[in-house]
């Protein structure tokens, strides 16, 4: 009973992270598409290398994007990029939250399992 109750907290937390992340991301994408149309007069997708989300790894891209956004501007392409970054961070954050939860709940088995998932994901997002 105690286990079920405490796991209920984790389930609620995960649920809120997922809902919030998807809502913010979809809203940013919709805003970015509208902004793209208003500044270009069309919605063409150009498959040029400069339009690809290319960086050595995900965190480098996100860091560079946050730096650019902090300096102002907020171009439609940057807003679209931010939407994708938020979307990719959503499941990542739910893993981080689970690692913290199992650590606090002193469940070594699932702390190790979630930590493995987190490490593999982090390594892949960093392209190590």
């Amino acid at each position, binding site marked *: 009973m105690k286990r*079920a109750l405490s*796991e*209920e907290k*984790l*389930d*609620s937390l*995960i*649920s*809120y992270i*997922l*809902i919030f*992340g*998807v809502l913010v*991301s*979809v809203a940013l*994408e*919709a805003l*970015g*598409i509208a902004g*793209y149309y208003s500044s270009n007069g*069309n*919605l*063409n*997708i*150009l*498959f*040029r*290398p400069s*339009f*690809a*989300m*290319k*960086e*050595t*790894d*995900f965190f480098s*891209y996100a860091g560079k994007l946050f730096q650019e956004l902090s300096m102002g501007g907020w171009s439609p*392409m940057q807003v*679209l*990029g931010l*939407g*994708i970054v938020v*979307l*990719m961070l*959503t*499941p*990542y954050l739910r*893993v981080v939250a*689970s690692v913290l939860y199992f650590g606090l709940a002193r469940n070594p*088995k*699932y702390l190790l*399992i*979630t930590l*493995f*998932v987190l490490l*593999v*994901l982090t390594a*892949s*997002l960093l*392209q190590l």
Partner: protein
Amino acid sequence: MGQKVGPESKLIDMLSVLIISIFAGFLGSLTGLGGGSIMIPVLVAFGVPVKYAIAASMVTIIATSSGSAASYVKERITNVKAAFYLEMFTIVGAIIGATITSFIAPRFLYFFFAGFLLTSFLGLSEHLRGEFPKRVKQDRFSKWLELDGSYYDEAAKKKVSYKMKNAHLGGPCMLIAGLAAGMLGIGAGAFKVSIHELILKMPSKVSTTTSNFIIGITALAGASVYFASGLLFVGLAAPMAVGTTVGALVGGRILNRLPNRLVRYLFLVIVVALIVQMLYEGITST
């Protein structure tokens, strides 16, 4: 057809992608195929290179999976512990799969895609839609992993308690599911559900919701590889994410109002059309 793209080529615009994605998300949700399985062949038919379509679909899947997983997790139907255990295998598979796709000739991807679509028929299997598994004798490893749970089943109007087994087999099988998902930019939901129900003996609702939950993390693992490969175009992924999420939301709401027979016919027509389209692309590509 798929790969001859000059740097200035205009193949399809965001509005068209948005509209197609709403339909793909809607039909994917109704038939259980998922938006990615429908979207990729359609984009390829419009001339979008298959690798670009796969990479964008991989990101899109994070939105549809996370959006629908949220409510099931809160209702405690999803077994979060089983999901974490199985994710260890799917993410490794997805990273390997996406890495293969980054290097492989596109022609092979068409054939792999058409071949893997056949696993969608597993979802039609009657014994996968049966009752709750009875008298499951849990092995020591599954017990050690705490792979059990309970939830309130609205349709049966009762609390369902269950235990899983064969975790030692289910895990490695999920590696294959992750490999296919990462390689083809799809959720591979039908394949995952089959493993959950046939090997791990999950009840049907726990199986589908846990599969949905796992798909998001698996897609993130695959997307991380595509990110670094330069195959991910934000102009393609953004309208796809919005469209499939909206379409899946609407599809999920009207699914219960449609007769089962109609849903099955729709499924058959769509799967056959997608297989034919991908085989055609594979045969005609140079």
